[in-house]
């Protein structure tokens, strides 16, 4: 079990975060750039000293600012960190990179088996500069696994790679984490990356953990308007009718169907301001009274004299303070009317 409950002072803000990751579990830290995600990883790895707090891994205290203060140096933490730059040693061959940790036998069967599993067994004699980006990342992952790290930290390692490679490498990490039973923490600023990886997701913004939950839950039930903005809600519409009147509904572009279906959520009617292809469907900008939303639809929207009616299904509701107003709204409650013609 990896536990961290720390405060790290940064120039712009103080990072306050609490996480718990069980062996074999995968947590994604999701948030915009500069939210403090990398700082949290570096604190766990021992590269950054927290101002306050404790970090424990498998029962061992790695960092504690409470007396007796503990700070296990990075080199004896056995915590693996993968960054966007694979960080292979350019003066060592692939084999010597894999066998960098002292416990690894460069000619042993474990290295050979892992290299085969990672698909780099034909490259053992090559120098890192000859490898492609994906191959370098495979070597970097293999090097960490051979070093028997007790926790795996991933700092957007694959964000510079193309989507297919990113998917296959993420799947590889997921398989390896499950196989080794180590806790893993991924930092991501792309929601899809975080969701593809994690059992649980923590949303971080300007040093504050806004919400921790399942990767679906965080998107479907954001705890606050700020979380909703971060996970892709592109419109916020005041509700004028029904029990939810006075609250604000968050409109996610993907959670919208064409037509009015008050039983399923909030009906929105507005002027179609723009429409463009998006993936296999269509993305439309809708101008409502005093609000604008963006929706993605399966079919190209057909307007009725410039007007388009859609239903935002089961939207999260937020109070005036921005906090989620209700944990969940049963679909059969009367739909709150929206600005309607």
């Amino acid at each position, binding site marked *: 079990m990896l536990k961290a409950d720390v405060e790290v002072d940064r120039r712009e803000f103080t990072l306050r975060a609490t996480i718990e990751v069980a062996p074999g579990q995968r947590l994604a830290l999701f948030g915009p750039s500069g939210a403090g995600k990398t700082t949290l990883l570096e604190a766990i*790895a021992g*590269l950054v000293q927290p101002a306050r707090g404790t970090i424990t891994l498998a029962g061992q205290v790695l960092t504690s600012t409470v007396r007796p203060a503990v700070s296990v*140096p*990075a*080199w*004896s*933490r*056995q*915590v*693996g*960190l993968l*960054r966007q*730059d694979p*960080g292979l*040693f*350019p*003066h060592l061959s692939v084999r010597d990179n894999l066998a*960098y*940790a*002292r*416990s690894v036998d460069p000619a042993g069967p474990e290295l050979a088996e892992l290299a085969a599993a990672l698909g780099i067994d034909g490259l053992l004699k*090559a*120098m*890192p*500069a*000859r490898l492609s980006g994906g191959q370098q990342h495979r070597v970097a992952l293999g*090097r*960490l696994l051979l*070093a028997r*790290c007790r926790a795996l930290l991933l700092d957007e390692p694959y964000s510079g790679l193309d989507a297919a490679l990113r998917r296959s490498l993420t799947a590889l990490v997921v398989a390896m984490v499950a196989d080794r039973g180590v806790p893993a923490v991924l930092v991501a600023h792309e929601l899809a990356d975080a969701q593809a990886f994690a059992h649980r997701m923590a949303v971080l913004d300007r040093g504050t953990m806004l919400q921790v939950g399942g990767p679906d839950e965080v998107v479907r039930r954001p705890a606050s308007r700020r979380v909703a903005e971060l996970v892709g809600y592109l419109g916020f519409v005041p509700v004028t009718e029904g029990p939810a009147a006075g609250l604000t509904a968050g409109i996610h572009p993907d959670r919208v169907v064409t037509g009015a279906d008050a039983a399923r959520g909030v009906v929105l009617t507005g002027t179609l301001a723009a429409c463009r292809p998006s993936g296999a469907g269509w993305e439309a900008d809708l101008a409502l009274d005093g609000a604008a939303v963006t929706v993605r639809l399966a079919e190209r929207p057909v307007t009725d004299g410039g007007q388009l009616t859609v239903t935002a299904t089961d939207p999260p509701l937020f109070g005036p303070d921005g906090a989620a107003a209700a944990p969940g709204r049963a679909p059969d409650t009367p739909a709150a009317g929206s600005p309607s013609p």
Partner: protein
Amino acid sequence: MAGALLIWIVLLGPVITLLTHLSGSAIASSLTAPGALDPLIVSAESGGITLAVLLLVCTPLAWMLARGTLPFPRIWEAGVLCSLLLPPLVIGLLLIFMVGPYTPFGELIGHFNLSATNTFLALVIAQVYESAPYYVLGAQAAFGAVDPRLEQQAALLGDRPSRVFRRVTLPLAAPGLAMAMAVAWARAMGAFGAVVVIAYHPFGLPLQIWTTLQTTGLASALPFALVLLVIALPLPLAAYIWSARAQGRRRG
């Protein structure tokens, strides 16, 4: 292309001239005279000691400069530059006032029957002062080119700092360090300005050339110039070739 070739040849002019003006008999007669090879030995020994001193004393300084671990790094760098910009002759003059016989340092080492003027020690001191800034700046650049994230990665893989330095920092900086040492070696071999003031004796090769030129003329000074090149150049050339190969290997 032609322009570059011309400039290159002009720059190499002195070397070409040296080779065209030497005759085998002149070399033989100059170098077989009794004691003719003493300056060579003096230069090689003092140069070797100078290099060892630089390596031991200036390498840590260069590393700290490169890593920015020192407070007010600009002031430290300015100090190194300062000694680079001082004319060697001025360094020699100032060294007399710093380590000469009537200075506290001079009196201190006098207790051990040592002197820092006109001795082998004085020669080493002068060579160190003439070559140190070249080594420090070169080594600083070499260490600065090592990505700190690689050192971090090595630490995360279980290496304590001394092992990180040995397994990652040093091998990665080695080509640049070799070049810095080569330049320092060439500087130390050719040191003249400070040496002529503070260490007129024992003769190293540059002073041998100078005195031969003064006493017996150009023709007999030339063979010593060749000797100086022969011992001063191989190390820099070898370092250059080795460092180019090491970098080539890393590029794959």
